C-alpha cells in the first residue's frame, strides 16, 4: 500500500519543513483491540459532529439576522424560502443534539474505564470543559430563533444563573444585556454563539486532541494484565483512522435521515407580553438539573432552594472535572470500587431525573 511518505507533495514539504514531529504523532499511537474497543470511537464521532456544526452554522449565518424583529423572521425565511434552508437548519439542530449526546457517552466511557488516571489527567479536564462549552453552545443557540419556547427557557435559565450568591445578579445582567430578556440578550447570545464559543471551543479542542495523540490510548485493566503476546493492537494511522472515517460516514447518514424526516419546529414568535405556555422545557441535556431544581422546596433552612441547587451543581461539576486528582485513603474499598459506585450513581441520577422530567 502507498503510504503518506511516498507522495510527492509530502516529500516536497518534508524536505523543507521536517514533518517528522507530525508523522510521529500520527504513527506512534497504537489502538488496543479488545471487547471494549468501540468506546474509542465516541470522541471521534463527537468531533465529526462538531465539524458539521461549524459547516452548517456558517451556512445559516448567510441568512440569519439577529434582532427582536428579524431573528424569528429570518429563520422562517431560511426554512420556507431558501433552497435547502430547512435541511441546513434541521442538520444544525439535530447535529447539536447528537453532538452533546455523544460527548456524554464518550465522557462516561472514559470514566468507567478510568482512562483519566495518570498520565491523562489534563485530557480529562479539557474534555469536561469541552462538554460544558458544548452545552453553553446549545443554550445560546436555542434562543436564536426567538420563539416562545426558547424565550421562556432563556428567561428561566438566566434567572437561575442569578441565584448564585453575590455575583449572580451581575452575571444575569451581563448575560441578558439588561434586566430582562430582550433584543439586547439576543445580540449577546448571537455573539457568544458564533464568535466567542467557536474560538474557545477550538482552542480547548486542539489541546484535547494533541494530548490524546501525545499520550496514546489507555488500556483497560483486563487488557493491561494480558501477557504481551496476547495484546492485540492496530495502528492509529491508517488502520484506526479509516475505521473512524467509515463510522463518520454512517453517522452522517443517520444525521441526514433524521434531518429529512424529523422537522425541527419553529413554533410561534416570542412575545414579552404573553403568558408562559404550559410545557416549558429546557433541552433534554439540561433536564436533569432543571428537574432537580424543580423538586427542591422553596426554602432549605436559611437559603432558597434554587440557590442551594445552583451551588450544588456548580460544586458537583467542579468536583467531576477534578476527579483525576482525588486521592483516597480507604482500607476497606479500592479506588476502583469507589469510582464504579460513584459513576453508577451519577448516571442513575441523570437518567432518572431526565425521565421524571419528561413524565411529569
Amino acid at each position, binding site marked *: 500500500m502507498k503510504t503518506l511518505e511516498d507522495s510527492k507533495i509530502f516529500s516536497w514539504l518534508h524536505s523543507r519543513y521536517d514533518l517528522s514531529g507530525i508523522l510521529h504523532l500520527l504513527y506512534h499511537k497504537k489502538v488496543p483491540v479488545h471487547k471494549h474497543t468501540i468506546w474509542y470511537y465516541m470522541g471521534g464521532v463527537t468531533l465529526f459532529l462538531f465539524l458539521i456544526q461549524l459547516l452548517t452554522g456558517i451556512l445559516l449565518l448567510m441568512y440569519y439576522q439577529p434582532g427582536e424583529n428579524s431573528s424569528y423572521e429570518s429563520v422562517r425565511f431560511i426554512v420556507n424560502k431558501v433552497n435547502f434552508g430547512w435541511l441546513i437548519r434541521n442538520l444544525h439542530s439535530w447535529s447539536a443534539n447528537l453532538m452533546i449526546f455523544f460527548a456524554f457517552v464518550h465522557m462516561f466511557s472514559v470514566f468507567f474505564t478510568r482512562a483519566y488516571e495518570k498520565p491523562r489527567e489534563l485530557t480529562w479536564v479539557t474534555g469536561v470543559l469541552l462538554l460544558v462549552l458544548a452545552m453553553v453552545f446549545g443554550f445560546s443557540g436555542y434562543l436564536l430563533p426567538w420563539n416562545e419556547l426558547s424565550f421562556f427557557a432563556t428567561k*428561566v435559565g438566566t434567572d437561575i444563573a442569578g441565584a448564585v450568591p453575590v455575583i449572580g445578579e451581575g452575571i444575569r445582567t451581563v448575560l441578558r444585556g439588561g434586566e430582562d430578556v430582550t433584543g439586547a440578550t439576543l445580540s449577546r447570545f448571537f455573539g457568544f454563539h458564533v464568535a466567542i464559543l467557536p474560538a474557545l471551543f477550538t482552542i480547548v479542542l486542539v489541546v484535547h486532541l494533541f494530548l490524546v495523540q501525545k499520550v496514546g490510548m489507555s488500556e483497560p485493566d483486563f487488557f493491561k494484565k494480558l501477557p504481551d503476546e496476547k495484546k492485540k493492537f492496530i495502528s492509529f494511522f491508517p488502520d484506526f483512522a479509516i475505521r473512524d472515517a467509515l463510522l463518520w460516514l454512517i453517522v452522517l447518514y443517520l444525521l441526514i435521515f433524521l434531518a429529512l424526516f424529523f422537522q425541527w419546529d419553529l413554533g410561534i414568535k416570542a412575545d414579552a407580553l404573553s403568558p408562559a405556555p404550559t410545557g416549558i422545557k429546557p433541552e433534554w441535556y439540561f433536564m436533569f438539573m432543571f428537574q432537580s431544581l424543580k423538586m427542591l422546596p422553596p426554602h432549605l433552612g436559611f437559603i432558597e432552594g434554587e440557590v442551594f441547587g445552583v451551588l450544588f451543581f456548580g460544586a458537583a461539576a467542579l468536583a467531576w472535572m477534578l476527579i483525576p486528582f482525588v486521592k483516597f485513603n480507604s482500607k476497606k474499598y479500592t479506588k476502583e470500587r469507589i469510582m464504579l459506585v460513584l459513576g453508577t450513581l451519577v448516571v442513575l441520577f441523570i437518567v432518572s431525573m431526565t425521565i421524571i422530567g419528561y413524565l411529569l
Partner: protein
Amino acid sequence: MGNNGRRKFITALLSIGGLGTFISAFYPVVKYMTPVKSGKPSVSSLKLGKLSDFAKNAWEIVRFGRKPLIIINDENGKLHALSAECTHLDCIVQYSKEEKMIICACHNGHYDLNGKNISGPPPRPLKQYKVNIQNGEIIITKKEDG
C-alpha cells in the same frame, strides 16, 4: 550588568508592564459588557381605558414602563393589578378562570389574587400595584411601599 542580570531586568519590566496592561484592559472590557441603563424615564402611572370596557372575569397583560403587569377583573368586578413576573424564575404568569387563581405555567406556581404565593416553587409574593378609578377610567400606579 551581565547577560543574566539584563535578562532578569527585562523579565521584571515585562511582567510589571504586561500585568498592568492586562488589568487596565480588563476594566474597560468589563464596563463595556455592563448594560447601559435605559434612557426611558421610569413610569409612575398607566391609563388603561374605561372600566366599563373591561369585561368581568377577564384579564390581560400590559406594559408598565418596561415591566409586564397582569390586570385581572375578578368575577365580582374587582380589579387587581400585579407584577406579571413570577418570583420563581421570571416567567410571565396568567389568570386561571377555573381555579380563580394566578398561575405560572413554567413550574406550576400558584398565587392568590393578592399576589400571595400559595403553592408551587415561587418563594415570594407578586408585587401589587394600586388601581384607581377616576371618572370611570382605570389608572394603575405604583404602591408607595415598593
